[in-house]
């Protein structure tokens, strides 16, 4: 199966968490915020200097450093048509 790190996503792409390759403490911290296997994450936008990145999940937004995002492996990566960041400039 083709996988990609969260840190490698482009703005407007989404994917499903396949694995979190972090130590137990960080994994648990991320899980409390909803970042766990099976969760759909979308790359919502970059901060002005590129890092941290802002992701969308569970109907909320989370800022996360790229170093941490590199530990989150995604599957089924593709464009996110629901992304509000893309829709923001649309007529509605």
């Amino acid at each position: 199966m083709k996988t990609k790190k969260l840190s490698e996503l482009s703005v407007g792409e989404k994917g499903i968490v396949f694995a979190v390759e972090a130590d137990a403490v960080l994994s648990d911290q991320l899980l409390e915020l909803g970042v766990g296997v099976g969760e759909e994450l979308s790359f919502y936008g970059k901060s002005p200097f590129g890092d941290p990145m802002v992701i969308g999940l569970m109907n909320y937004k989370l800022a996360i450093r790229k170093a941490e995002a590199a530990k989150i492996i995604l599957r089924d990566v593709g464009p996110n048509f629901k992304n509000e960041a893309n829709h923001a400039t649309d007529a509605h």
Partner: protein
Amino acid sequence: MPLTLTEKKDRTIVLAGNPNGGKTTLFNALTGLRQKVGNYPGITVEKKTGTFVLNGADITLIDLPGTYSLSPRSEDARVAAQVLKGEPFPDAVLCVVDGNTLERSLPLVLQIRALNLPTLVLINMADELKKMGTTIDLKEMERRLSLPVFTISAKTRQGFPDVKRWLSEKLKEDSCPSFPVSRPHISPLTTEDLRRESKAIVQAVVRNGRSLHAFSAKVDKVVMHKVAGPLLFAGVVLVVFQAVFSWAGPLMDLIDETIRLLGLGVGGLITNDFLHSLVVDGVIAGVGGVVVFLPQILIVFFFISVMENSGYLARAAIVMDRFFSKIGLQGKSFLPFISSYACAIPGIMAARTIESRRERLATIFVAPFMTCSARLPVYALLIAAFVPAVPVVKGVIGLQALALLALYVLGFLAAILTAWGFNSTVMKSDKTPFHMEVPPYRWPPLRGTLLLLWDRSKVFIRQAGGVILLVNVALWFLASYPKSAGPEPVKESYAGQLGVMIEPLIKPLGFNWKIGVGLIGSQAAREVIVSSLSTIYSIESDQNSVALQDALRQDLTPLSALSLLVFFALAMQCMATTAVVRRETGGWKIPVVQFFYMNGLAYTAALVVFQGGRWLGFQ
């Protein structure tokens, strides 16, 4: 032995929930002006409590820090867990949940449910949910949680009568005393268990409408833009500084005039020389000299509160993370820093959200460098006396506001350089993880902002009428006695002798004995230098009021005024902050090192400014 209800006099209800869930808005709506800050019994951590009346009885409400779980990973979560699990058990728990983020919020609800306390789940933001077309099946949710669930809006007060009805029934149940709470030993829930159950509940009960973030996405296109974002931030900062000088002006004149008239009026009534001088010079001139700065301080608090509650500060924190991570801090350090611009005490407590102990200590160590509102009277007085009120860019920013801005930048730079120095020497370590929720933009709650301003006014007036008044009356006495017929009676007084004694130490910084007296007083609280100078000048002059600024120009040159400003920017002159640092760090080591480091730096920097300036030929 289980207590009976009659033995238990106070009824306590706890408010728990995630950050950004509207918990504090609900707390403000229920308690209004009846709030106070105190210590949790047993643990020396500050808590926010308030009271409200239910069926004629006073009920205590505790506002817990917002957390995502009860696992004690941050100081905030540790506090929340201790209150919920500790004794005395709360009589009821109100779990406040943002209806927009139910799936992320439910794990905490499930953890609290496992504590077996009388618990009510409140789905907040009902007004937003309705607008977005999101629906929640409450019946099904209650069935799955085995807990009562109500929808409310803390902002519009929708659903409040239902909550009060539930509470009064819970607290009335005499047949079912709240002690002892049965807590069957259940195997601890793993985070994965909690997540799985939350997901199942949300899938069964929530029908999502439109996303709340569409509007925020548009705003973020500007705020998080590479060029527009920093420009906007600079613009906001300029507006704040300009406001401090121009908006506050009329109000300050009004207070000033009132105090002057009060001095004249009261002074005219008192014929006894001793009492006349005590009241007019010691109390009215001294305390009045400080009270006049209240409008400026409230403007600073107002802007910080609006920035925080609108969601803007969270963005700024995220942007700053990249830079802060290089100097041993992190994005979450930004909130304590901005809070410290109002007052270092809430700022230092706001550092509790930082999980990494090393980063938290570094944040606490440098936070008092941020220009707190107690420095503002000193800055404002000296700037008004020595910097001409001319515009730099007409109608946009004046020279005085710019001078003030420069002092704020100086404090910030000192903090950053200190953090950087520590990170590259004694406190070196690897980067720790950083992640932070980005809340949607929301209108700041008007009620909450007004309550904050009211609260800060009370604290400020109490400080002026307490510590500052006491120090000042003592100073008035020391500056008035022994009576002397010489040309400089104040210099020969006790206070004057003290000032003359330390003069050799401060002369290299450009300060004379009078400033020295003020500096001694300012060790209790920074703004005391203003009140003590005000009193000294008032005793010196025969008139009932003196223009403090004119008198200052006799004692300070522009260069020594600059030296004094630099000293105040860097010095640690706040006993309350030192006490809080000790409490929050759990020992004397950090506050003592901090005290000597900051004051040493202040002395050295003022020395360099004054001697360097003289060497360059400035006066």
